[in-house]
């Protein structure tokens, strides 16, 4: 059966820079899905993470701006001090709401809003981290029929976040627990052959 995935969401915390460099660095420039990322950073961290990753990866990496259209083959990083959400109309939005799961940006906020919009056509990935953000979000993705990938805790710089994600989705089960090294290949296997613009239900503001 042809893949119908429309987007990948990734949540990562402690050790995130190295993990993202490795994962994104192994993906080709023509990877057909949009990738939305929450990396926990300090509120005043500035915008250097997206720039750095953009220089080191074949994919285009940018910090998410409000109302960015979600395009295939593009990586969007949540800006420091804002939550990143997916709008029904195929656009991104930002929010200055209170911390969720002790974080802003919060992985749970991104995952839950993406699950609402993409339903079963979403891949959620939880990587290294020393907290519990992302567990509820990954659960939401599973509840909507999406696919859950978690970094093997033994392979993660900080194992709490992957461990918590695996525990939280115990009822449905995680689909893949893999080491970082195998993650890019897995995403390429799951993704459709060619880029299709996300056929998101067009909302009122489309």
């Amino acid at each position, binding site marked *: 059966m042809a893949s119908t995935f429309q987007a990948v969401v990734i949540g990562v915390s402690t050790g995130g820079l190295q993990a993202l460099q490795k994962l994104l660095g192994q993906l080709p420039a023509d990877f057909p899905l949009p990738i939305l990322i929450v990396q926990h950073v300090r509120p005043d961290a500035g915008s250097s993470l997206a720039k750095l990753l953009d220089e080191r990866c074949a994919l285009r990496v940018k910090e998410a*701006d*409000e*109302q960015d259209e979600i395009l295939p083959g593009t990586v969007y990083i949540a*800006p420091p001090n*804002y939550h990143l*959400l*997916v*709008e*029904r*109309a195929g656009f991104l*939005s*930002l*929010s*200055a*709401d*209170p911390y969720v799961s002790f974080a802003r940006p919060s992985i749970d*906020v991104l995952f*839950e*809003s993406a699950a*609402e*919009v993409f*339903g079963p056509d979403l891949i959620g990935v939880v990587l290294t981290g020393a907290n519990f953000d992302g567990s509820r979000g990954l659960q939401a993705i599973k509840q*909507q029929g999406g696919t859950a990938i978690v970094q093997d805790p033994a392979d993660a710089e900080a194992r709490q976040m992957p461990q918590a994600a695996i525990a939280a989705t115990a009822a449905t089960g995680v689909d893949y627990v893999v080491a970082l090294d195998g993650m890019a290949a897995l995403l390429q296997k799951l993704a459709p052959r060619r880029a299709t613009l996300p056929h998101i239900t067009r*909302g*009122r*503001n489309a």
Partner: protein
Amino acid sequence: MKSGDVEDVEIRLLLEGVQEIYGYDFRDYADASIKRRLTHWLAESEFDTFSQAQSRLLRERSVFESLLRGITVNVTEMFRDPAFFRAVREQVVPFLKTYPFVKIWHAGCATGEEAYSMAILLNEEGMAGRYRMYATDINEAVLQKAAEGVMPITEMQRFTRNYQKSGGSVSFADYYTARYDRAILSAALKKDIVFAPHNLAVDGEFGEMNMVLCRNVMIYFKPPLKERCLQLFDSSLLAGGFLCLGLKESLEKKQIGARYEELAAPLRIYRKHYG
């Protein structure tokens, strides 16, 4: 139909009802955030579904008011984004000083921290007594708090750090009196600020402003409502006036954009052209 789709229909109906009965229009708020907040409100309420809440919501003002508090999230801080306030101090105030008197509008001021920060900054720059601020919000409960000017003392450490990073050089503690667990802002900061209700989705302009700040409010709006607000600010601003947006908002691709020039590039301070 998925249960999620039913909920989308319920939310649409609920927002329509609220608009018709109470005149508060949330229909052009970005879906993802408002849904998050409504779902949160519902979970904390005594109702199981939005349909169930609807009946009492439309009849009892107190239920509506609790919804309003749930929908309008009022997170703010003093000298939020210190680099922005530093740029105001260094690059905007010199222009403001050329006027005998200036008027400033804080749209979506929440509990007032942004307006009080501006008052501190203007007083330090020698503009005491030469400005009036209008600080407005849709949520009257937060306006009341704003007018009191009382904050949890536990916040003061963070606000002091922000203040210092923004280029403030006197002792921040001079601006408030500590009483038990609360910090009471000094009267000198309050006297030239008028707090008033104003709804950006339905209300009109504020005339002849030298500066309008609307930060982290329009990020919650869909494009048409954003455009409405920007038109409102544009018609409120004098030529040569300043428009300040949140760090992740911009005038790029906006209708009024052509009439503005960006002053302090990444900090979203714009100046309206003359003529």
